[in-house]
């Protein structure tokens, strides 16, 4: 498999985008469902109730899409490429938490978020697959 072809880069970025979007929307739906729906007290029964909350259930479906798209991506891309590149989702999670869940994000947390973006960009500029044929 060529490691630097335009096709490979396009395919990798498309799948990375799907991984990020399904992860961010899935996490958001989970968080919304837990904070606004059924309460979780640590018991197995409360876990079952939480799972069938509409938002939590929707979050689980989105995260199932995340697992499959990530699995497909790992079929050709390195783990050390996939994990940092898709960590840009942390930034989107923070933004969604601040905008929709009224979570407070301190300047230090924003600085941390920026570092994560910087790390993502650095790794994203490397070849997805470093294996030698």
């Amino acid at each position, binding site marked *: 498999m060529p490691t630097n072809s335009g096709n490979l880069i396009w395919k990798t970025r498309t799948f990375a985008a799907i991984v990020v979007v399904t992860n961010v929307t899935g996490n958001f739906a989970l*968080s919304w469902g837990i904070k606004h729906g059924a309460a979780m007290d640590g018991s197995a029964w409360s876990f079952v109730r939480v799972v069938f909350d509409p938002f939590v259930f929707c979050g689980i479906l989105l995260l199932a899409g995340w697992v499959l798209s990530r699995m497909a991506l790992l079929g050709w891309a390195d783990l050390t490429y996939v994990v940092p590149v898709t960590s840009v989702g942390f930034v989107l*999670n923070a933004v*969604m938490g601040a905008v929709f869940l009224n979570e407070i994000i301190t300047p230090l947390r924003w600085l941390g978020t920026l570092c*994560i973006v910087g790390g993502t960009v650095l790794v994203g500029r490397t070849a997805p697959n470093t294996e030698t044929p």
Partner: protein
Amino acid sequence: MPWIYVAVIVVSTVASDLLQSWEMKRHGEVTGIGRLLKLLLTKAPLIGSIVFLAISFYAFLALLAVADLSFAVPATALSLVAETVLARLLLKEQVTPARWAGTGLVTLGVALLAL
């Protein structure tokens, strides 16, 4: 208590990702959701990765009940460092200086988020 959940999430996430990457790299590229699902249900390392993912998921739900989403998600990024080191050692991936630098930046970001 939140950090105990974070520890469980990190350990199980690392185990899940290593198993998944190892098997997918061995198998090669897969096209189609049906083939992906079939692979997921028939290959032991992938089944193991889903078990670890389920543990991670349960701990993540518990963490969300006691912590903000803007703390919970970034804190679990600690798994990135462990995964990079173990991918180098176990999966024999070539970790270039740019990848190490990127990993370092993300780790710094996580540390800042935890302050």
